């Protein structure tokens, strides 16, 4: 139930975005561009005798897809088995993250992770606590890109743990929180309602 509600929100956002982007995409295709190169509607024109399918490439098995399908969606789709605690996460953080993000996640030299400053107009000291709208993004990003020098080297348990620790340091979850496939997507992020759809459309109005 919760999942389908989220999905509806996401779909609504998607629909709005697509409408908002339509002007750009249409202009991009250039309906008025060279007729020989551009089909009406903005795409490219396949030669008329082209088949519906060329059958180039090979079909991918489920196992092949699973091997590369590493992303995590806001509803938790893509999260693996496993779990981790704040305490375990502190150990991961202190060995794997501290060199780039500092003792408390605020010092750098690279991106600030801990930021709980509330903001009215501008996000000050942007970090997970005040500028990350989805907790699932942490899993998606850490799994693909962190630690910087050995990306993809953390186990699922370690990844959940360090996320639990970061959410705790950002005052989003309690000290006894356990992150897992079930709990992570349910975390409510303070920045969740901050993001709005691009309303620029071209034309004379500056947005």
């Amino acid at each position, binding site marked *: 139930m919760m999942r389908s509600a989220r999905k509806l929100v*996401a779909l609504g956002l998607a629909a709005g975005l697509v409408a908002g*982007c339509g002007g750009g*995409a249409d*202009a991009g295709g250039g309906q008025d561009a060279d007729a020989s190169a551009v089909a009406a509607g903005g*795409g490219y024109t396949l030669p008329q005798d082209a088949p519906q399918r060329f059958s180039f490439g090979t079909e991918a098995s489920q196992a092949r897809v699973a091997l590369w399908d590493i*992303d995590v*969606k806001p509803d938790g789709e893509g999260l693996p088995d496993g779990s981790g605690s704040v305490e375990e996460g502190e150990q991961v953080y202190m060995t794997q993250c501290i060199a780039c993000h500092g003792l408390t996640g605020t010092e750098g030299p690279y991106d600030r992770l801990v930021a709980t400053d509330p903001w009215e107009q501008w996000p000050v000291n942007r970090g997970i606590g005040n500028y990350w709208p989805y907790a699932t993004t942490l899993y998606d990003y850490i799994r*693909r890109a962190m630690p910087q020098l050995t990306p993809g080297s953390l186990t699922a348990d370690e990844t959940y743990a360090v996320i639990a620790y970061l959410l705790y340091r950002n005052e989003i979850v309690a000290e006894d929180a356990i992150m897992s496939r079930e709990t992570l997507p349910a975390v409510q992020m303070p920045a969740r309602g901050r993001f709005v759809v*691009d309303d620029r459309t071209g034309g004379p109005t500056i947005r």
Partner: protein
Amino acid sequence: MPPIDGSPLSRRAWLTTTSGLIAAGLLKTQADALRLDASEAPLDVGQTPSPAQTAQATRSTGRPDPMKVPGRIVSEVGSRAPGERPTRYLRAEELSSSSRSPLQDFHGIITPSDLHFERHHAGVPDIRLEDHELLIHGMVDRPMVFRMADLMRYPSISRIHFIECSGNGGGIYSRDRMPTDITVQQIDGLISTSEWTGVPLAWVLREVGVRSGASWLLAEGSDAAGLSRSVPIEKGMDDALLAYGQNGEAIRPEQGYPLRLMLPGWEGNTQVKWLRRIEVTDRPTMTREETSKYTDPLGDGTARQFSFVMDAKSVITFPSYPYVLPDRGWWEIKGLAWTGRGRITRVEVSTDGGRRWVDAELQQPVLPLATVRFRHLWNWDGRETVILSRATDETGYVQPTVHELWEARGERTSYHQNHQRAWRVAGDGAVTFGLGELV
């Protein structure tokens, strides 16, 4: 063969006597000896040339008269002329993840591939053509893997498009920090233009069969950041390109070799390089790059998300800092303009600080979603002034002033700073960045 005045075999005489052999390609190992750069090689070896020889073989620069010595023989890979050393600008204060194109050195609209700007999030991966694969899966009838040979077998197309980083120009947005000693390359070098070749994504999506209800794509790179962005499927079915060619050769590693997603007119980070996976979905993935990174706080407690399209913009590339106009009189103001919404229809130039504007010449053909070169012939009277340019695109959008952008988005937003740029020309001809004079 001319007489050699009885002197021992000089370099010049050697050149003369052996030129036939060299022309025939028989003395390839001596090719370097023909590089007659005066700073590196004396004209003669061990002998003072006669006055006649000197007059014949050198000019006032001390370098040899190129009409008097045979030129270099053929080479497998060309190089720039001696003295032509355009370079990308690297920011030194950090482990650089970006480099900027030398806009001031370019003549047309095409960026030489080795000078195309760079921006990457975990370095440039080392990928071999034969190892690379693209997986397309998700809401499709047939999940498929394509090797490069498969993709290159599809019908192909070529288009000239710019790519611009949405952070371009961010260094000249703050009222509190308007530098004067900054180059156009440092300000706006995160834009480049190439002829891109590849297969339209729509044709490959047709191959896998997109299921109804699909509305988004997730594009993912095979760099160490696995950079990923969600893209509305409309763009994928429209003018998106799976590109493997850049300016007539394979895409450079810094630009995504062997395969990148091209989304003409959209911010650079969405045009995922080293593309390895496309997942067809019914919602955005909300990756780090489209949530906490490439979003635009607006000053009212919200932040703009999925700000894909690059707004119209123009920059004057000449004259610009640190150039010094040596004297008054006729000068051609030159620059580049572009828009992510089709074609540039007009570029205006002001040579009096923005009071009066005149139309600049647009170099034809003006291509959609590509840079266009503009020019304005200017008779400088030698007095101090500020020169500006502003672009208009086919939607009627006019490149705003910085005040207009501040008004619309606040003064501390992070990306898409496309406001009008200005150069101050001092009475002594010295050119500095001049926007600070106007704010």
